[in-house]
């Protein structure tokens, strides 16, 4: 899932300071699960900002809201009145949610309350680790199911580098060396031959390097006729 974390409150407070009525919108999907932008975090943020305002004698109104999935227009639509009734919206969803609101209401200002970080796996309660960078061309069938692009600090294709000591990464000694892990995994799977051969240059054109990506599922797309019907109903 997408893992984000709240921006420091002083940064958020500074962003929203010029505005009188602030709508704060959380999301019940990924960011709720990663404890960054669910209803609880939204309410606590609002409360903390009110305490700050109380200290500084500033007068601001906050409205705490939460939608099911902020990256989808239909869900955002449910709080449209509140969004447009405020001077500014602080999105407590990932950047996708913030941009969805921004794209839906271009003249309304929407700010991000979270820093969107990683495609992560909850390793344990409160710990999420990156395991994918969305390169668009998965190779983990050749690397024992471990992604070297995201889990190696240098995205090596033929690791591990010389800095791997005690099977830890030299960039962060608390992090396992991805390539040591790949070696160990392939060894127990009896597939070490996979890393005996040189893996050639990777084609990065499927990643963000190839420009902004849009994935389309033709058979799922609505035809212009269908879309028209929908609009008529609405």
């Amino acid at each position: 899932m997408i893992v984000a974390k709240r921006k420091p409150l002083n940064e958020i407070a500074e962003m929203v300071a010029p505005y009188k009525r602030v709508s704060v919108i959380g999301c019940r999907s990924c960011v709720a699960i990663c404890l960054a932008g669910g209803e609880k975090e939204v309410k606590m943020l609002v409360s903390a900002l009110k305490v700050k305002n109380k200290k500084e004698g500033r007068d601001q109104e906050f409205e705490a809201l939460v939608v099911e999935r902020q990256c989808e227009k239909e869900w955002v639509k449910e709080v449209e009145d509140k969004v447009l009734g405020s001077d500014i919206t602080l999105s407590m969803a990932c950047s996708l949610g913030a941009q969805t609101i921004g794209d839906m209401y271009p003249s309304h200002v929407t700010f991000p309350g979270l820093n969107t970080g990683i495609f992560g796996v909850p390793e344990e309660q409160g710990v999420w680790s990156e395991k994918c960078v969305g390169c668009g061309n998965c190779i983990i069938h050749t690397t024992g199911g471990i992604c070297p692009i995201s889990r190696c600090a240098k995205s090596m294709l033929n690791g591990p580098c010389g800095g791997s000591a005690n099977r830890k990464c030299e960039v962060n000694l608390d992090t396992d060396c991805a390539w040591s892990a790949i070696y160990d995994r392939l060894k127990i799977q009896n597939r070490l031959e996979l890393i005996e051969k040189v893996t050639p240059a990777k084609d990065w054109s499927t990643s963000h390097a190839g420009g902004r990506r849009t994935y389309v599922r033709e058979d799922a797309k609505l035809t212009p006729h269908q879309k028209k019907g929908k609009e008529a109903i609405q």
Partner: protein
Amino acid sequence: MKAGSNLEKVFESGKFAVTAEIGPPQSANPEPLTHHAKMMKGSADAFNLTDNQTAVVRLSSIASAVIIMREGIEPVIQMTCRDRNRIALQSDLFGAAALGIKNVLCLTGDHQIFGNEKPAKNVFDFDSIVELQVFDQLRREGRQVGGEVVKDPPRTYLGCAENPFATPYEYRVSRLAKKVAAGADFCQTQAIFDMVMFEKFMDEVRSRGLDKKIHILAGVIPMKSAGAARYMKNKVPGMIVPNEIVDRMKNAKDPKEEGIKLCIEQIEHLKTVKGVHGVHIMAVAWEEIVPKIVEMAGLLPRPTFQ
């Protein structure tokens, strides 16, 4: 001859090679390079110029190479994948070859977290092995990685680095084999302090016949103090410094002298290891000691070729 460099000639002649490291300055001033070149001239067969080593911004390795070549010594330039994508790497290889640089050491590169530009965005389009493979294909087939045919391909002698002391230990020789397969002609090792472990590594290298396919330069670092030994032991990932060595430096009356003595002993030992074709001396910030060590290790005079 692949490139016809002096280093290549020494290896081909079967002589025990010596290379030394020169760190380019953290400025636009060429003077330190010229100074080191003059001082070390004749002490080694080629001089390795680091490429923004530990991600600290320094005078570029290609420019440094040109500067020391003016003093009549041969460079080995490092090219890391950290700062350049495949376009820049291939372009720089052309450029280096055009300037007369014949030895290139292919490295993945230290992560920027260790350097003085930590917020940098890194590239890592390649890793060192892919870099070797692409450069090897360029020089052999005159074909870029993207398929473009090059009319006048570079003639370059390709090197790599390998660390026998990084984990998983049992995989390190396989990784060296991958570098050989990718086209490496010579290999510089991480500094060696644990001779027992290195010999084990070399046993496997020989048993796989890799010593016949690649020229191994064993890395040595002369130490100035016990603090340096401790630092390398505790703070440098992938470096193994046995306790005896730390103790020896600690108990020495004159640590500098002891460091020199130790380095010479190590070189003497390495000469006897089968499959080691030379040494690479990394006298970081102590370059002036290199001529003395080379002399005392009985490696002078260096061979010359016409």
